[in-house]
């Protein structure tokens, strides 16, 4: 056995050697990395969940409605098994855009998920097919339909659940054949397209007749979107029925509108055979009902509210029990109790914009709904609702930070306004910590760097305001056209930017670039029309197709991204949504359009981000996003000559169309890229990219900002809220040579002691709280492979060289971060029957490690690696060095006294217990037993003079003696990092005297009594009573 293992190891070593030799032959260019490099470098999601976010699909288990799956439009799938009190994300390894969820009610551990957003507003994401889980969401398999882009409805045959229908809407922005109604009969292994009209028409709904599953209804929808325009409706749309499980279909027309149709929702009533409801968009949209299995239709309602935005609100949900009840979730939930003839909107203090509704078939007053504010539960048919506060699926568009301590994160959310939240908060970052800055759809939300009480924010369509947080005042600062000016075209997501050198320079972009130096009170136009101003691309007023829908969402030919160079404020970049990239090097006097210099990018491709370099004024990075014209290619470029020439930076490692790129201000080769599929990082200026995805979901990353003081990367996701990677400094240090080593030690950032604050409240489990960043000191290193064989641990040494502590080391592949709490060993405070938090504190939290250099050694097998951590003064500390030093010395003085008095208590206890035990072993009445017990009692009395006896107290006595008071003094002095109070300092000599007194008494007592007692024991050949030595006591743990 041994030799086999030896051979194994030799073999591995030999193989490694040959591999290494081969590597030497090629010169590695750049720093090739994969996702595993990032290792333990984590990002934490900070929410917000207070307003939750857009839910696109919902399903629950009929026989146990505590089990709910919620599909966020771009935030993944969340599962609850406690009735929507708390949720866990279960789909984070996959595409986060969810269109449909369908539980196989016969085997509820099997759930189908269709990806891609189906409520196809301008901001929607893309999917990559259909997935299935058979273990309740623990793992999912991709089951095909990868090119459909969005799947909106899934229906499972109630008799044979291996037969599943998937309604694929298909590509939104271009013609494509992968759409229509698909069917599988083998549980998803293979699919057939059973209903197809043409490459422009997708399947928008499907409904099976529960009592006769060969009978189905499906609707087909002809639609297309482009950057400035949306068309719902066309010749391909229609309502279809099949009698033979999808083999053949007939188009239904009797009683339905003539002419072109738009989006149609169809739903079979489970409560009455033959009853079908449909909502049909046409040039006169209406709510329809059939009572003869779809042969003939009646128009039963043309209620204005029910007809609102038919391309977007197209869902009909019949009550499972009452055939006359039917719901149409839309702006509100419209409810009818007379089979669709009359509707009223449901109430409750809830968000608007509904896209999902589930009704409990065993109790239809119990419902779950999903809208733009998350998931709600009702037990009275929608009279009142409980909001789930544990779903952080907010959709950021843009993100910003300030320089407060701790810093705050600002950003605008889809349909949920503009918000500010802290990066750290006592007890964690919770819903209540987020503050609303403004309403509508939020986009740029930027704090004024010179006055933290001012925030610039906007709602859709360029409605920019300046809010004064102290007074609540809000000023509309949007520049208005003067006589003679053309209309200003504001992109729905209007860019606001600030100068870096001079943050009083405030920029705003319509088709013109504006700048203000008085916080928006007045504006100077510093450019001509920077866009193409192509009238063919400005159709937003007619946008909608059959139903006009002009909400500024399709505003086009406007500036989308603005940035001033941090190194030269006369260099300003502006990118437009119609593909122009403009740069000025003379503060706006003249502009050059340079997008044409990039041959690989089709003309007119939307410029999503321009990021001037922070190391060279002539450098800039740019991302293009062509998805709104059907082009999902990742486009990333770099220039070092103000746009004259460009290098492409996209590699095969990138997936998803690109939104944002940032260059690290410290290491110019460190780049962060946000795409529709998440975050990508390059350590070599874009030669190689790796997906940051181990614990970070594949969610659309729309914006990024680096908080330079804290070395933190703040990530604005569209669907999973804001995330913070608290320390990016390890990434700055990685080199190709380092990655080739087995172990590569990285620098520890300076660490300092902090005093945390807790929070005393218990909000229940229906509440989202994000963790705070760790304030521990860190030992950081890179391992090429997971550590398997031999010891591995870290030893920390005090500034004077003495050994302090051994820590378990991180063993994983990639970057490891080992936390050291910077505390010395807690004093020995033997447990007492007490709830006193001071005693708990003293016993568990050692004294803070003082400022100084702490060397460490990492042992890994036979090798040793060394480094050091600097523990420095807390930069926020208001205390002088002298006061801090006094505090630290006082703590150690008290620490020593505590150890002394605890030793005495323990020594007494031990010999007292020994004496009693010895006495118990003797025969009753034995004189020696009596002597022993007397001895024990006397020790108990002596002990009782200075410490509460834990074994004699049952319950919580609240009694305190000298030792307990000393513990509390120690805890008090420890918990304040500044100068101890005068009375605290004055108390110390008193304790010193008191302890000396006890010690004197104890030693005298032993002198007098112990020798004699032990002699008697010896005479009876009984083991002597021993006194615990101080050395032995100090060696004990805790």
């Amino acid at each position, binding site marked *: 056995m041994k030799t086999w293992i030896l*051979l194994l190891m*030799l073999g591995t070593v030999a193989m490694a050697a040959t591999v290494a030799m081969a590597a030497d032959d090629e010169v590695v260019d750049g720093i090739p990395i994969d996702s595993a490099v990032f290792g333990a470098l984590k990002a934490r999601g900070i929410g917000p969940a207070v307003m939750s976010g857009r839910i696109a699909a919902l399903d629950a288990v009929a026989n146990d409605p505590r089990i709910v799956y919620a599909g966020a439009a771009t935030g993944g799938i969340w599962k609850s098994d406690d009735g929507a009190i708390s949720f866990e994300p279960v789909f984070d390894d996959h595409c986060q855009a969810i269109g449909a969820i369908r539980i196989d009610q016969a085997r509820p551990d099997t759930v189908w998920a269709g990806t891609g957003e189906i409520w196809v507003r301008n901001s929607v994401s893309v999917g990559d097919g259909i997935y299935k889980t058979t273990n309740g969401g623990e793992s999912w398999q991709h089951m095909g339909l990868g090119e459909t882009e969005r799947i909106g409805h899934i229906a499972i045959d109630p008799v044979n659940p291996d037969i599943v229908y998937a309604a694929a809407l298909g590509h939104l922005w271009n013609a494509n054949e992968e759409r229509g109604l698909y069917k599988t009969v083998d549980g998803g292994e293979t699919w057939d397209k059973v209903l197809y009209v043409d490459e422009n028409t997708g399947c928008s709904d499907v409904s099976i007749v529960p009592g006769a599953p060969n009978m189905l209804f499906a609707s087909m929808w002809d639609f297309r979107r482009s950057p400035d325009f949306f068309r719902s409706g066309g010749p391909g749309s229609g309502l279809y029925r099949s009698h033979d499980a999808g083999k053949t279909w007939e188009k239904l027309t009797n009683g339905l509108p003539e002419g072109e149709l738009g989006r149609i929702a169809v739903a079979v009533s489970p409560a009455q055979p033959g009853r079908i409801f449909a909502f049909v968009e046409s040039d006169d949209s209406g709510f329809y009902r059939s009572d003869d299995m779809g042969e003939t239709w009646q128009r039963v309602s043309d209620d204005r509210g029910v007809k609102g935005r038919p391309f977007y609100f197209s869902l009909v949900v019949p009550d499972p029990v009452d055939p006359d009840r039917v719901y149409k979730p839309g702006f509100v939930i419209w409810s009818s109790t007379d089979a669709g003839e009359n509707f009223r909107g449901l109430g409750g203090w809830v968000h608007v914009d509904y896209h999902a509704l589930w009704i409990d078939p065993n109790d239809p007053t119990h419902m779950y709904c999903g809208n733009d504010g998350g998931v709600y539960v009702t037990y009275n048919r929608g009279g009142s609702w409980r909001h789930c506060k544990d779903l952080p699926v907010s959709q950021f568009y843009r993100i910003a930070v300030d320089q407060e301590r701790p810093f705050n994160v600002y950003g605008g959310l889809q349909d949920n306004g503009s918000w500010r939240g802290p990066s750290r908060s006592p007890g964690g970052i919770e819903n209540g910590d987020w503050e609303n800055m403004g309403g509508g759809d939020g986009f740029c939300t930027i704090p004024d760097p010179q006055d933290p009480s001012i925030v610039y924010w906007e709602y859709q369509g360029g409605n920019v305001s300046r809010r004064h947080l102290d007074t609540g005042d809000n000023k509309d600062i949007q520049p208005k056209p003067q006589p003679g000016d053309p209309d200003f075209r504001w992109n729905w997501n209007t860019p606001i930017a600030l100068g870096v050198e001079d943050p009083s320079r405030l920029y705003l972009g319509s088709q013109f670039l504006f700048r203000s130096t008085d916080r928006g009170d007045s504006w100077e136009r510093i450019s001509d029309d920077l866009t193409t101003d192509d009238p063919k691309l400005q159709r937003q007023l007619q946008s909608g197709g059959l139903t006009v829908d002009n909400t500024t969402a399709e505003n086009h030919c406007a500036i989308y991204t603005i940035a001033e160079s941090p190194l030269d404020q006369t260099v300003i970049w502006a990118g437009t949504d119609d593909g122009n990239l403009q740069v000025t090097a003379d503060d706006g006097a003249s502009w050059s359009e340079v997008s044409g210099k990039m041959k690989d990018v089709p003309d007119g491709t939307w410029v999503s981000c321009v990021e001037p370099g922070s190391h060279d004024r002539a450098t800039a990075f740019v991302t293009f996003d062509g998805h709104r014209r059907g082009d999902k290619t990742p486009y990333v470029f770099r220039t070092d000559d103000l746009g004259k020439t460009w290098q492409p930076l996209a590699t095969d490692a990138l997936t998803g169309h690109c939104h944002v790129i940032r260059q690290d201000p410290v290491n110019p080769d460190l780049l962060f890229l946000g795409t529709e599929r998440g975050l990508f990082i390059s350590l070599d200026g874009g030669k190689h990219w790796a997906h940051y995805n181990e614990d970070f979901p594949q969610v659309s990353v729309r914006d990024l900002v680096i908080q330079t003081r804290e070395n933190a990367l703040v990530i604005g996701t569209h669907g999973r809220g804001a995330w913070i990677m608290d320390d990016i400094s390890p990434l700055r240090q990685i080199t190709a040579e380092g990655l080739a080593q087995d172990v590569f030690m990285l620098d520890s950032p300076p660490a300092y002691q902090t005093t945390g604050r807790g929070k005393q409240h218990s909000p229940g489990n229906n509440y989202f709280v994000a963790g705070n960043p760790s304030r521990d000191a860190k030992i950081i290193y890179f391992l090429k492979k997971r550590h*398997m064989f*031999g010891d591995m641990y870290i030893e920390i040494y005090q500034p004077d060289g003495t050994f302090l502590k051994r820590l378990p080391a991180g*063993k994983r592949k*990639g970057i490891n971060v080992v936390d050291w709490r910077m505390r010395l060993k807690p004093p020995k405070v*033997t447990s007492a029957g007490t709830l006193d938090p001071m005693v708990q504190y003293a016993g568990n939290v050692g004294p803070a490690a003082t400022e100084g250099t702490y060397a460490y050694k990492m042992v890994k097998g036979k090798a040793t690696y060394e480094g050091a951590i600097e523990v420095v003064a807390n930069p926020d500390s208001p205390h002088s060095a002298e006061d801090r030093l006094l505090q630290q010395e006082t703590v150690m003085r008290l620490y020593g006294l505590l150890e002394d008095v605890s030793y005495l208590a323990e020594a007494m206890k031990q010999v007292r217990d020994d004496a009693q035990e010895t006495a118990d072993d003797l025969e009753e009445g034995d004189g020696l037993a009596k002597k022993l017990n007397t001895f024990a009692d006397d020790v108990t009395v002596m002990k009782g003079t200075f410490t509460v006896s834990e074994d004699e107290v049952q319950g919580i006595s609240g009694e305190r003696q000298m030792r307990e008071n000393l513990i509390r003094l120690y805890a008090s002095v420890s918990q304040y990092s500044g100068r101890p109070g005068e009375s605290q300092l004055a108390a110390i000599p008193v304790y010193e005297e008191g302890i000396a007194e006890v010690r004197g008494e104890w030693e005298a007592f032993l002198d007098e009594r112990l020798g004699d007692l032990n002699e008697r024991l010896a005479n009876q050949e009984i083991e002597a009573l021993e006194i615990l030595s101080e050395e032995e006591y100090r060696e004990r*743990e*805790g």
Partner: protein
Amino acid sequence: MKKIIMITALAAALLSAGVVGAMTADELIDKSLEAQGGLDNIKAVQSIKATGIFMTMGMEFPFTMTQKRPGLMRVDVNINGMEMVQVWDGETAWTINPMAGSAEPQDMSPVEAKSLKTQSDMDGMLVDYKKKGYTVEYIGEDEVEGTAVHHLKLDTNDDLVLDMYFDAEYFLLIMTAAAMTVDEQTINTETYTSDFKESGNFIAAHAMETRMGGQVANNIVIETIEYDIEVDDAIFVKPSAE
């Protein structure tokens, strides 16, 4: 050079699963038992005594663990000078926990008892799993903290399901995950094993890290392991109440 190539080839043959591919549950189990030291050696051991340190919340407590066939186990942990004891005596689990205020032996809760019982299986749960009434399933290839692994699911059919992850190169167990339900609350526990060293006829892990809900709950470092020492059965017997 020739020697190195030969050894390399031999190692490659032995490491034939270096070409990571799907396998059956039994194949994976066989490979993992081989990697530990082989089924024969495992079954030959009559008793084990291990010492080490249990680290939690910044504190360290020395412990001793003693196991003896058939399925007896005792753990002694020194906490603040007090001895805490946990024992599985083949039928029940009992403990003496001075931290709870009493020096009397107490019975452990059914959940704790189940956990202790599985730990007392000296051969490990995979040996003779069928006889023990367990079912196993090879789930597939996966990654644990960036390292390629094979994932095996073991169901005790007694309310305990373990996900076991074996390093794809060495077939040593590097992580075990379980969802423990205590009082209606489900806590995900993961135990990461490393620091594998030769020990007797075996390759044994000498470091374990347990995380609950993603946070590190404790670390264990094993310092010594002795095999086939004399163990008095009396140490497993629950002392009668005084």
